[in-house]
């Protein structure tokens, strides 16, 4: 039987920056997902986008994984950063860039 929680944990551990989203980074299918995709491209961060619309088990599983009932969800170095609103706040305050630089996923002069 498929162990979705183990799969998610592995995905989150093995990718420095990962966004669980509706649609793909190039074609987000939800405004909230699009906003985080935009922020990550503004920060010049390379990331992996997981389209939950293509996998109902991951769509449900990711909500349990972080006890967070909504999508998108952003993870950096295994740490759950938040959904759209928190990510946007952190971006606007500059904290997100600081965190990305500290995590080594973006160059300081980017």
């Amino acid at each position, binding site marked *: 039987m498929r162990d979705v929680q183990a799969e998610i944990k592995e995905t989150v551990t093995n990718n420095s920056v990962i966004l669980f989203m509706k649609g793909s980074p190039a074609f987000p299918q939800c*405004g*909230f997902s699009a906003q985080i995709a935009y922020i990550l491209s503004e920060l010049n961060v390379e990331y992996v986008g997981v389209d939950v619309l293509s996998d109902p088990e991951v769509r449900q599983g990711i909500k349990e994984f972080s*006890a*967070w009932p*909504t999508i998108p969800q952003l993870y950096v170095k295994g740490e*759950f950063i938040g959904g759209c*609103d928190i990510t946007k706040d952190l971006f606007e305050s500059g904290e997100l860039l600081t965190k990305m630089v500290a995590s080594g996923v973006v160059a300081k002069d980017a």
Partner: protein
Amino acid sequence: MGLNTIEERLRMSFPDAEITLRDLTGTEDHVEAHIISVLFRGKSPVEQHRMVYKALDELMKGPIHALALHTSIPE
């Protein structure tokens, strides 16, 4: 379900809160919420949002399609 249901539910968990709800689409299922409560003191933004999601519980699993959420602590 309407905005009243959402407000009542929030009021139960955050009795002190200043709650502002906005219907983003006219369908009462895409909602923006501003919640100011002392109960958020000492909590990270992620924890604050989790508290709200917990308060709304099953409303998050269908009736509310999208929730733009802003939590803060009174000045």
